[in-house]
């Protein structure tokens, strides 16, 4: 589904990603973790073309992301993204947030978009708040709307960039529950996260990155039971300590 091969990226002289390779199969949930500055957010943004990369190749459903003639909007309609800071459209209510891309990217009629949007908001548990503005929603509620917004395009896969890092602790579980339900329904996902408990429950595979490199790529049970690299062991011990 997502195939990353030897991707490297630098900002000027500073290398950010160095020869990264990983793949995500259809229906798989892959968690990417690592210390700050390891390049995990940058890597995930390369997958849907939000960040350019200098060398290597990223293929999404067979389409090369970095090729000049690739229709990026079309590609992005098939891969959804959830951001750390939610990024809901502040001038539209929750329902309209979920409707916007349906109408303008998929060209659905307003009525169809509205029906589907209501269904999705119900699925994430926010049907009563459909007409509220993002400013009136809590962080956890905004993130759930953001997830509904991503689902509105019926994507083949979803990228999640630290979806709970900006949330107050008591709201983290409501969002993780929604993501877990998505995983159980068979959605292909690539998740950058620090939530190791969640990763343990949901991930099929775990990728550990450090300083722009993929250091470890293992099945979830293997990784959590006995990480192969010292760096990963050190990271896990710090994270799981609290």
């Amino acid at each position, binding site marked *: 589904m997502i195939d990353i091969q030897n991707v490297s990226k630098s900002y000027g002289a500073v290398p950010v990603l160095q020869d990264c390779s990983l793949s995500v199969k259809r229906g798989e949930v892959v968690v990417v973790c690592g210390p700050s500055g390891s390049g995990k957010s940058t890597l995930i943004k390369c997958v849907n073309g939000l960040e350019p990369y200098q060398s290597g190749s990223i293929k999404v459903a067979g389409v090369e992301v970095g090729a000049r003639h690739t229709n990026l909007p079309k590609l*992005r309609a098939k891969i959804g993204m959830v*951001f750390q*800071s939610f*990024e809901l459209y502040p001038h539209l209510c929750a329902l309209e947030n979920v409707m916007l891309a349906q109408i*303008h990217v998929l060209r659905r009629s307003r009525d169809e978009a509205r029906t589907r949007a209501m269904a999705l908001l119900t699925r994430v548990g926010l049907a009563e708040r459909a007409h509220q503005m993002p400013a009136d929603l809590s962080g956890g509620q905004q993130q759930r709307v953001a997830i509904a917004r991503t689902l509105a395009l019926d994507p083949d896969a979803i990228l999640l960039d630290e979806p709970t890092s900006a949330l107050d602790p008591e709201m983290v579980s409501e969002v993780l529950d929604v993501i877990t339900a998505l995983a159980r329904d068979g959605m292909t996902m690539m998740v950058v996260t620090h939530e190791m408990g969640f990763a343990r429950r949901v991930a099929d595979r775990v990728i550990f990155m450090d300083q722009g490199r993929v250091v470890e790529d293992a099945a979830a049970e293997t990784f959590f039971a006995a990480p192969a690299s010292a760096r990963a062991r050190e990271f896990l011990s710090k994270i799981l300590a609290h």
Partner: protein
Amino acid sequence: MHDVIFVNRDFLAAGLLATLQISAISIVCGTLIGAVVALLRYLRVPFAARFCALYVGLIQGAPLLVVLLFCYFALPALFGYKTTAYWATVLSFSVFIGAYLAEDIRAGLQSVSPKLTQAALACGLTMPQVLRLVVLPIGVRSVIPPIISQYVRLIKFTSVASIISVQELTGNALLVNARVFEPATILSFVAIVYLIVCQAVSLFGRWLNARFAVRT
């Protein structure tokens, strides 16, 4: 003493109407110019953005009266066309306010966080769609107060058109005064009318902002 106003009320009312007409046309044209210039500069369109920056810098360093006289005397002389004072006024006012609105709108566009733009692109929207559906609506709605205050400024500026004999409120009031010579009454009346119009527009602007401002 107050008979002066009552007796000439039709003439003065016609002047007020002209003031409002000139203001309305200049506001619409100026806003269009401002929006286009702001977009060109925001998108850093090569060559066009540089030209727009020059336009804004030139107009912002010039007094309105001089721009007006330039449009009424100098340009027709240069290009050999005839123009009426009315249209020279509308042209110069639109061009003038356009430069200031362009800066205000540009600030609004730039206040839209790039991460929001990224999120919109991530949904599969093309850049033109993102501009039309996300950046412009949010950007413009976040600068309603500065935009309204430019509009109020323009309404006050219409008084300058009296200098080239446009028959707006100030011009008509001065004509009445030339006949009856009651400057204190007439000017007080004119001042009060401008006060009411400006305050009304400001109030409208406050309502507009309360209703449409984007809360983050």
